């Protein structure tokens, strides 16, 4: 078995300098641009934030500390992206951090006035990690436009904790943080719904997934990695090599070819 266990969150583009032994819980902030994600980040971390670059890239990276209850959490503001595919450097950074950076909680921020579009990112993130909480932000703008979001129903439908906020005014933020904490401590166990694809694809995934899981263990979502490999996503292979270690891929390629 070729799994390389990493003790620190590091890897090209990922060096957070966080030593896992220190056990500061990490919350990753993801979401579309223009959702008020940055406003939320500023509200959480205030002046206790530090801006720099993701290693080797000219993409801004902001991280800071926030306190929920009696615990300090490290908040990492991921670049705002429309999807978690691998088209741009920002998207790669975001998806790789969520998958391989192993944040304790991934907090996805969505715009209540454009929920349909924002939900696609949420669904994609849910495929990568189950430790996820959704923040439906700009709820005041939605109200102004006559849009109402049934949070309870959304929670039930998605299977993950959801909270409505207006990061500008702070409304709903304490409830959001409570859910983040609950997700971290395990008081709430998110059970993200899975998007189901056509039988062809699901069949191929079922074949490849165990092969992947055998090599990389339970830490990372084998289903997600299997799907990306089936899509022909080259960056995932690179990422696997970088963060997990040498993964034996020929069996995977053969499994793909077996797809009808």
């Amino acid at each position, binding site marked *: 078995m070729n799994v390389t266990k990493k003790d620190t969150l590091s890897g090209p583009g990922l060096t957070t300098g966080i030593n896992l032994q220190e056990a500061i819980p990490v919350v990753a902030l993801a979401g579309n*641009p*223009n959702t008020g994600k940055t406003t939320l980040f*500023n509200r959480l971390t205030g002046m206790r934030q530090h801006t720099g670059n993701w290693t080797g890239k*000219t*993409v*801004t990276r902001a991280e800071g500390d926030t306190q929920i209850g009696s615990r300090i959490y490290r908040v990492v503001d991921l670049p705002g992206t429309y999807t978690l595919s691998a088209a*741009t450097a920002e998207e790669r950074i975001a998806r790789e951090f969520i998958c391989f950076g192993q944040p304790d909680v991934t907090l996805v921020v969505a715009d209540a*006035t454009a*929920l*349909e*579009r924002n*939900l*696609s990112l*949420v*669904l*994609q993130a849910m495929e990568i990690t189950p430790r996820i909480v959704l923040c439906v932000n700009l709820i005041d*703008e939605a109200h102004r*436009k*006559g*849009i*109402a*979001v*049934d*949070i309870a*129903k*959304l929670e039930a*439908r*998605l299977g993950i904790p959801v909270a409505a906020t207006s990061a*500008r005014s702070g409304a709903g933020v304490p409830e959001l943080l409570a859910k983040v904490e609950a997700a971290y401590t395990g008081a709430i166990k998110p059970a993200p719904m899975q*998007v*189901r*694809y*056509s039988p*062809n*694809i699901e069949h*191929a995934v079922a074949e490849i997934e165990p092969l992947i899981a055998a090599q990389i263990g339970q830490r990372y979502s084998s289903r997600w990695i299997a*799907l990306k490999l*089936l*899509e*022909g*996503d080259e960056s995932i292979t690179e990422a696997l090599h970088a963060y997990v270690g040498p993964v034996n891929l020929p069996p995977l390629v053969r499994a*793909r*070819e077996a*797809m*009808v």
Partner: protein
Amino acid sequence: MIPAESVRDETMTQIYTTAAAIADEVITRKQRPIIDWDERIDQIVTSRIWGFPIMLGLLGLVFWLTIAGANVPSAMLADLLFALQEYLTAAFQWIGAPDWLHGLLVLGIYRGAAWVVSVMLPPMAIFFPIFTLLEDLGYLPRVAFNLDSIFRRAGAHGKQALTMGMGLGCNAAAIVSTRIIESPRERLIAILTNSFVPCNGRYPTLITLAAIFMGGGVAAAYSSLVTSATVVGIVLVGFVTTLTVSWALSKTLLRGVPSHFTLELPPYRKPQVGRVIVRSLYDRTVVVLGRAVKTAAPAGAITWLLANLNVGDASLLAHTADFLDPFGAALGLDGMILMAFLLGLPANEIVLPILIMGYLSTGSMTELDSLDALKSLLVEQHGWTWLTALNLMLFSLLHYPCGTTLITIYKETKSLKWAVFSAVMPLAIAIGVTFVVAQIVRLLGLV
């Protein structure tokens, strides 16, 4: 075997379809008539008739606020810092420090840094908050939307309009802001041409000279109008140069096809004025200022040394200026002006003070109390004409970016080659343009 392409097509479609279905279930819209304000505003702001005039009007307004608003604080800050200098001088005398040490540290380093701060800080403290407010408001993507066509035809990207706008405040900050341009090729074009937009540090030079030579040449009633028109004209020259050089670059060194352009026009949001001011004061103003002072301080020291180390009967500064005179004259300038630009590499705002210092041989950076005194110094004692002033303004507009910007370019591109090019190319253009203008003006006997 299913081709990988169609797997991705299907997974994406399925995700979006699921997202849409869930959204449908949880969202309810009130049927009350909603006026779509965003749409209404955009209809005006991006319209054929009003779009451009509004942009130009806003630009003018921002300019005016920055310049007019910075005047008094700049003067006050200068008075304060130079008063402090007297205390420093007294302290140096009290401890019996040698003259040269006082000269180097106080008259050179401190004075250089003080100059940069008093010139740069007030306009930046006005410009950046306004710019950030416009950003927060959501107006800036509309500008990129309006102007993209022009930039696309120059082989560049519409968002370059925004980085240029940022460059009106500070070139170094603008270079960092080019990150909003995704395509590396177009980003590099935006970086390499950014210095053709005059930054805050160059306004005083442009305004002073325009006021003396252009505004001063007409009746008092029209003088400030002529001065403003001249400055706007210079900015337009910068704009045209940017487009031309972008076009040339995209046909030669940075060949490539126009990238895709997807720009979201977010809904307008009420900017949080308080937070914007605090954030932009810290992030953009103070940080940039810190870097500028770090580069200006050594410049002040070197300048003082050159101006006070005498070889034979004159200072090193005077000697080099004489040496460069013939070259300067060909450009419609003179040797001392070239020296001022050379020594002013670290920061644009010290070019004029160094020039005056050189002319007066005072040994330390100076300013003169009135425009009239300055005029008589330039015209009567050093033979300036309006050509000299014009070419100095053109040179200031087109020459290499300041030290801070060059360092930033290096950091952002991670390429020494491009950082050097970003200095050499504008310099070549500045020399070329001033040379041609000088020859034409003289040929036509206008001066």
